[in-house]
Structures are given as C-alpha cells and as structure tokens.
C-alpha cells in the first residue's frame, strides 16, 4: 500500500518534471520578454538598467500627432475582432446545422470540400482577393457606404473582417458540426412537431444548447482576428491610417528611417497580448469544451 502510494507520487512528480522541461523555452522566452520591456539593455536574462521609457507609447504617441493614439488603434482592433467573430459564429453555425441535421445532395462533398479549403494558401490568394474587394467597393451602399464598419469593400473594417471570415470558416464549420451532432434528436423532433420551422429550431432550440461551442469558436476566432497581420495590412491603406489595427501599427516601430527600438516593440507586443490573456482567464471553461463529443461523431 505504501509502495503503491509512493509509486503514484513518483509518477505525478515525473509528469510535472516532463511538463516543466518541455515548457522551459516558453518560461525563459517570456521572462526575457518581460524583462526587456523594462530595461534599457539586457544580457541574457540580466537587465543592464531599468526604465519605464519603453512603455511611453501608452501616454504619448511616439510618432507625433498625425498618428492615431494606441488606444484608438486598440479600439479598432477590438471592433474588427468582434465583427469578425460574430460573422464567423453565425455563418459557420448555420452551415454546420445544415451539414449535421439535414439530408441533401452534396452533403458529404460539401464537408470534405470545407476541409480541403484549408489547403489554400492565404498569401497567394491575396492578389485576386484585392481585385474582388475593389469590385465590391464599386457596389453602392454595401461597398463603402455602411455606418460603423464602413462597408464590405476595400479599406473598410467590414471588408477585412469578411476576408478573415473566409479563412476561419473551415475550422468553424467542423467544430460546430461536432457540437450539433451531440444534441439529442428528440429535442429537435418535438419542437418540429409543435410546429416550429427549421430556422426557429436552429435559433431557439439548438443554439442555446451549444453555448460552450459558440464560446469556444468565438474565442478562437477572436484570437486569430486580434493577431491577424497579413490581411489587415494588405487590405487597408497605410499603417498610420485611421482604420489601422495593433499588429499593423506595430510595424511603425520597425521603420527603416530610424533605428528600431526593439525594447519598445516588445512592450507593444506585450501590450497586445494582455487583453487576450485577461479575456482568456474568464473564458477558460468554455475553451476546454471545444470538443463536444466522445469517441465518434465530433470534431
């Protein structure tokens, strides 16, 4: 008995040791990163002088008054991430509902095709997508006349969000389908017998039942939108513009004309990381539920 207890203790100690060993580069890396944002120079993990100067971008714009302040840029990023998340959740849960619950021609084909879409390199589609966004811009109202998001054309938050939605869809549809698969058919059937339409069933019966799934997908979508660089950079004009987002704004600190203050770059990067981390701490349970199923039928 004592031997057994000893053995299980040894096992869990071993598990912790393996975990710590594997995570070592992350510990060291972030230790260095935090250190460096408060230092003038570093040597390894040792600081060669402490300073708060690297964080000065919080209270004054380092590029003069023509540039938006970091807080406006943060707000832009937030709006973009929220819009993109909402669209992703709606579009992929509608499709996932049809794929999970309805019989129609091309059902299996559509699901396989969704996965195959993920094989398309985003970067090479950039040029044609630029053409398409320019075409959308020419459509009245939808192009660039909408309030708040600007529209769905080139150089609008809506347009950038829509392009990012397209690249997020394969993941969204597959994950949401797993959640729909796990809801009992009886619930849906009884609602239908009571005279509800399929839309009502989807919106009023099934959606409230997959809240963990919605939360998990939202978090993943939000994170990828928050950190997105290539697409906002390509489809908005100028990194100093009014619609710039954090990851694009970060590029301002690495200009060719002045020597890059890498410590400040690190500070901006850390600043960008903090909101997501906080957001994350509050939504941990939902994220762990991203996989709704047991052995079969999910993911």
């Amino acid at each position: 008995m004592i031997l057994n207890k000893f053995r299980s203790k040894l096992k869990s100690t071993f598990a912790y040791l393996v975990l710590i060993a594997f995570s070592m580069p992350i510990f060291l890396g972030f230790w260095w990163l935090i250190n460096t944002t408060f230092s003038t120079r570093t040597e390894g993990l040792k600081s060669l002088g402490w300073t708060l100067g690297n964080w000065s971008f919080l209270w004054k714009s380092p590029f003069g008054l023509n540039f938006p302040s970091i807080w406006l840029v943060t707000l832009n990023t937030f709006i973009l991430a929220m819009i993109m998340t909402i669209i992703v959740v709606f579009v992929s849960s509608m499709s996932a509902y049809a794929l999970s619950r309805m019989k129609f021609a091309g059902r299996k084909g559509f699901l396989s095709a969704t996965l195959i879409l993920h094989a398309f390199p985003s970067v090479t589609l950039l040029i044609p997508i630029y053409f398409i966004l320019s075409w959308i811009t020419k459509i009245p109202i939808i192009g660039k006349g909408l309030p708040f998001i600007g529209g769905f054309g080139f150089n609008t938050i809506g347009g950038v969000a829509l392009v990012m939605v397209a690249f997020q869809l394969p993941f969204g549809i597959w994950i949401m389908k797993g959640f729909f698969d796990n809801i009992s058919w009886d619930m849906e059937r009884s609602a239908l017998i009571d005279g509800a339409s399929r839309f009502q069933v989807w919106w009023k019966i099934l959606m409230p039942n997959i809240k963990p799934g919605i939360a998990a997908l939202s978090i993943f979508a939000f994170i990828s939108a928050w950190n997105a660089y290539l697409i906002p950079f390509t489809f908005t004009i100028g990194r100093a513009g009014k619609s710039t987002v954090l990851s694009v704004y970060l590029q301002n600190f690495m200009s060719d004309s002045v020597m890059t203050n890498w410590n400040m770059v690190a500070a901006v990067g850390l600043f960008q990381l903090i909101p997501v981390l906080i957001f994350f701490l509050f939504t941990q349970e939902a994220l762990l539920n991203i996989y709704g199923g047991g052995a079969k039928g999910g993911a």
Partner: protein
Amino acid sequence: MSNNFKLERETSSLSSFPDTKSFFSKLKSWLLPYTFLSPSLVVVTLFFFIPLIMVFILSFTNLDMTNFGILKWWQPANWTLDNYVKIFTNRFFPKILNNTLIYVSMTLIFFNVGMALVIALITTNINRRIGFASRLIWLMCRLTPVVVYIMMWKALAGPSPMGVINKHILGPLGIGAGEYLLNANPWLFVILVNGFIGASFGMIIFSSAIEAIPKDYMIAAKVDGASTWQTIRYVTIPMIKWPLLFVTTYQTLSLLTSFEQIMLLTDGGPGLYKTEVWSLTAYHRAFTSYFGNTQWGYGSAWAVILVIIGVIMAILYLRVFRFGELMQEPKIDQL
C-alpha cells in the same frame, strides 16, 4: 374491428403526410438546406473559388509589377506554360521540395500532434488548476504577435553574452563557443518556433476530448488493474481517435501553407535556400525579388502546385481515415 381500422387509417395518413404537401412546400424543403448554407457559399465563392480560378489563370501569364495594367492576363493568347517549365527546371526545386517535406513532417510529428498529445495527457491528469495554467502558458506562444514571438526566439538563440541559452545554459556547462545558435542549427529552430505555436491547437482539442471521456471508462480500467501506460494506450487513445485524425489532417494543411514564422526567423537562409519551404518560395517570387520586380504570375504558378499538393494530401487523409464514417445520417428528413 372498426376501432382497429380507424387506428390504421390514422397511422397511414400520418406516414403519407409528405405526399399531401404542395409542390411549393416540397421545393421549399428541398431548398432549405441550401438556404442555411448560402452565407458560407457566398463567402467561399467570393474569397476562395473566384480567387483560385484567377490564381490559376495568372499562373499561365508573366504578370508582374512592370506590366500590371498593360498585360491582358485574362486573354488566352497570353497564356503559356513557361512558369511551370521554369519551376521544374529550377535547380533548387529538389532542395525546396525536400525542405518542405522535412518541415511539415518533423513539426507535425514532434509538435503539432506529438507534443500536443503529451501536454494534453499530462495536463488532464494533474491538478486541474495547474493543468489549466500550463495550457495557458503553451497558448501564449500563439497569442503573442508573431513579430515579437520571433524576437523572443532570436533572443533565446542569440550569441553570447546576449543570448539567453548561451549565457545561462550552454555557457555554465561549457558547451559550444557561444555562437549564434540560429545560424548553427537553423532547422532545429525553425521546427521549434513553429512547433511551439502549432502544439497549442492540438493541445486544446485533445485535452477537451480527453475531458469528455466518461469517467467510468477510466475507473473500469483502474479496477481491471491497468497501468497508466495501458490506460492511455487502450482507453484514452482509441477514445480520441477522431480528434487525432482531425488535428493531423488540419495541421498538415496548415503547415504546408504557413510561412510567416520562417520568413521572420531565417527568411529561407542562412545561405542559399537552407530553410526555404514551398509556400515561402511562392511568397518570395510573388512579392519580393532580387531584381526589384514582383513576379505575380510566376509566384502564382508555385502557389497552384502547392494547392494541388494540399488538395491531394487532404483527399488522401479523408480516404485513409475514412472521414465518411464520421457523418451520421440525419434522423429527421420529412416534417
């Protein structure tokens, strides 16, 4: 008798209910699934299919920055196979193909699936809070802006006395001469840098799948006297088979098309094409060039081949893993 008859009539009228529907309601129920799919169909058509067709056409032209707006790339008269000939006769073609294979397979096996599974197994079997904290730490690599994340790794690999690994680990142990580790082992760092980001995706999916396994199975295994290893091998792994297959497929495709980290870390170097992978080549040809012009047509040709490789891989995976069985048949057809 009459009672029986009535009952029968009622049942039969219930089962023949769809036949009484009008043509329009039939059309409506036929169209319904597509109504649900229409938003995705619109987005996918606009931002995947049309661009793909355009990339395909562009790959037959020599469109670049100098003749943009002049060259009528949509006219078949301007289409040639030159770009493809150029790719296959490129003397770095085998090198780039080999690099891509190494990069995708090593990162996938050791990190995106392997490390993800190890971390998921450990964090679901230890104290819940510590498990969550560990997963959060691993996720931080994904959450950090790429530029800063790469900066962090460069600082880790830096030459002594600046580099963290050189100063605090290799130095005291007396290993190496304190050189820039990134130049000494570029492949090791390319795989590590991508792997630490990639592992978090599988980790989240695996650990939630493991948590979803009913506890009875674990208890039953324990009662039967299974060792930890046996429980993992014969209970946990079979129970998370589908997430495993999904992550393998999804991450293979992600790795094939990802290049941002490599671009910022080594940009294909050090030296000639040492760590240049396929998607990075496509980007380099399409958007940067030693001669200052961006060869969109030539870059598109590289991308088209990559898409073809990706689609073949995806179809292979779907076949081998029998994804078709994943699809439950819908239980409500008519109502």
